[in-house]
């Protein structure tokens, strides 16, 4: 069976942390179908997980009954993941993590996201927060 030239899939979950493991397994399965190396699969999985956790914490302020959509598109030269929510508009879209020399809990998620992806773009369009993450292959 011929493999498709472009992989496209999406998953919509409630904003409850119990669903994060479903997003991870979805992404893992999808990336493995595309024969990406394990280290890259692990990095992308971690990054998307952190981005979804941040949506729950910041955009939805731990309201677990909202919706998160994760869309995924992969061609031979890049992986693109778009994470959408209908939560609050961020005060600041720089999303700085903490200085790693500073020993305190938290502030690591954005570092995982920057490690896995080459481009990070945030937009808010008609009440929807859209975080587009792109990794060149």
């Amino acid at each position, binding site marked *: 069976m011929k493999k498709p030239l472009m992989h496209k899939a999406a998953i919509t979950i409630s904003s*409850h*942390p*119990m669903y*994060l*493991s479903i997003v*991870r397994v979805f992404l893992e399965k999808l990336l493995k179908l595309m024969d990406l190396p394990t280290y890259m699969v*692990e990095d992308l*999985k*971690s990054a998307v*997980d*952190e981005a979804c*956790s941040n949506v*729950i*914490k910041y955009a939805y302020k731990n309201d677990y009954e909202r919706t998160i959509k994760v869309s995924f598109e992969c061609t031979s030269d890049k992986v693109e993941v778009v994470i959408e929510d209908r939560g609050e508009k961020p005060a600041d879209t720089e999303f700085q993590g903490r200085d*790693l*020399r500073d*020993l*305190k*809990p*938290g502030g*690591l*998620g954005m*570092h*995982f996201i920057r*490690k896995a992806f080459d481009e990070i773009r945030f937009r808010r369009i008609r009440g929807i927060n859209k975080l587009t993450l792109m990794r060149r292959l």
Partner: protein
Amino acid sequence: MDINIEDVGKGKKVSLSGEIDMHTSPELRKALLKLTKEKISPIIIDLKNVSYMDSSAIATFVEALKSMMSYKGSMRLCNLSPRVQEIFAFAKLDRVFTICKDIEDALSR
């Protein structure tokens, strides 16, 4: 995630398994802070069966470590998979935590 706590010498061994993420780390936090409140030392964390760990897991370990500093307790992590090892190194925490090869190594520190 499953948490299993056993006595080892004067301290405790905390064996973790499964995935530690935003959903499961609150339970880990509760278990560790209960031990640090009792000023348990050493706390040996066995990560052998941890298949996934996110930043909330790391935050939980950092919080427990900081609360142990107040009573000069010792936290030792052991049996890190290459991926978990890499996560600690990436977060520049591989020197902050005492990372041991296995339980024997952790007990002998």
